[in-house]
């Protein structure tokens, strides 16, 4: 181990490859300052009840969280400019809550492979923010929420592949905002609420 990292500036260790599930693990990262990078990998086996909290205050911070298993929670909070939050969930994962304040922040949530009963929420305040929630494959009975306050914000929710019974909501307060919701299959609901001028909403079902 140690020899591998001698002299290394930044490194990434592969997960331990345990043959059993890894559960009830907690991660807490707080970074204050600029250009910081946080990376969390909870995928070593399909554990459950894992929880990750990442808080970043400053500019140009990146947070990347990947989680696999059930009932896991991911919370990311970023305050500042040009921050990026990227969350990837695999089957049976849990709730995601991303909160960003500032300008030109971006939040991406990718949900793979058929979770249900999940809440995937992105809340952004400021200007030029971008939020994208996407499900790929069999996500049913989930709630998606994007809430944006400010100008020139963009919200996209895409739940098309084998997704049914999902509830997508977009709320935007401000000017020149854009909302796009794409849903396929049955029993889905989409609601977009926009308060302000020059906003555009687009829903495809």
């Amino acid at each position, binding site marked *: 181990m140690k020899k591998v*990292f001698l002299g290394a500036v*930044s*490194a990434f260790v592969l997960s331990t490859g345990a043959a059993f599930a890894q559960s009830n693990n907690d991660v807490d990262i707080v970074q204050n*300052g600029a250009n*910081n990078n946080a990376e*969390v990998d909870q995928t070593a086996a399909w554990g459950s009840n894992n929880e990750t909290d990442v808080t970043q205050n400053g500019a140009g911070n990146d947070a990347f969280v990947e989680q696999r298993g059930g009932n896991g929670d991911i919370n990311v909070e970023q305050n500042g400019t040009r921050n990026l939050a990227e969350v990837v969930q695999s089957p049976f994962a849990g709730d995601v809550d991303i909160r960003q304040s500032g300008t030109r922040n971006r939040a991406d949530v990718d949900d793979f492979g058929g979770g249900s009963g999940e809440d995937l929420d992105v809340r952004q305040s400021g200007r030029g923010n971008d939020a994208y929630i996407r499900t790929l494959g069999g996500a049913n009975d989930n709630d998606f929420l994007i809430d944006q306050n400010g100008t020139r914000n963009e919200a996209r929710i895409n739940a098309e592949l084998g997704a049914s019974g999902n509830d997508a909501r977009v709320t935007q307060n401000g000017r020149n905002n854009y909302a796009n919701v794409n849903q396929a299959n049955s029993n889905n609901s989409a609601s977009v609420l926009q308060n302000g001028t020059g906003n555009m909403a687009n829903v495809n079902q």
Partner: protein
Amino acid sequence: MKKTLLGVASILVMSTGAAFAQSNNDADIVQNGVNNQAETFQQQGRGSTDGDIDITQSGARNRAVADQRGGEHDADIEQNGASNFAQTSQTGLDADIDVEQSGSRNISESSQSSNFVDARVRQSGNRNYSNLDQNGRSNSSDALVIQRGAGNRSFVEQTSIGTNASRGASARVEQNGTRNESYVTQYGTTTGSPPVTNNEARVVQNGNANVAMIDQGNYDNSASILQNGTGNTATINQ
């Protein structure tokens, strides 16, 4: 021959050849100057307990070795100056290591291979290096590393081998300065059930361009990283 040894002192303390248990031994070494060496061994006899080793070295390029086998041993090493080297190893229960180094380019290598052990390493100055291994079953092991300065590196590895291994290991690392690196690994290869639980790793870094990594396996683990500064990297794998 005599001239080459000027300024060089070497002290070797061994408790030799006893087949029975040895207890309550104390070794106390103070060396002032450069290029000094102190080697201490408290290791003969099964069931030796309560040994104490104290080594204090002031100056540069000193070397201290403390090797203890048996339970409830203490090893304290203090080195002031640059390019010092401290090596401590303990194989018994309830053993304590305390290493303090001030200066630059100091190296501390510590290993403990039993349960209920404590290790504390404090280094101030630049480009210091600490490697701390707590192996064995590692039940209730505590590791604390504090480094102040720039370009310091800390490695803490708490691993477990055996049945019901590695419960409740705790690692704390605090680094103040720039370009410091901290790596904490807590994992095990064990046949117990549940294996490797309740480990805790906490890293605090104040400064810029620091790197923190925590790697944990299995159940009920907790990892936290706090970084204040710019250009820092935090990575946690569970």
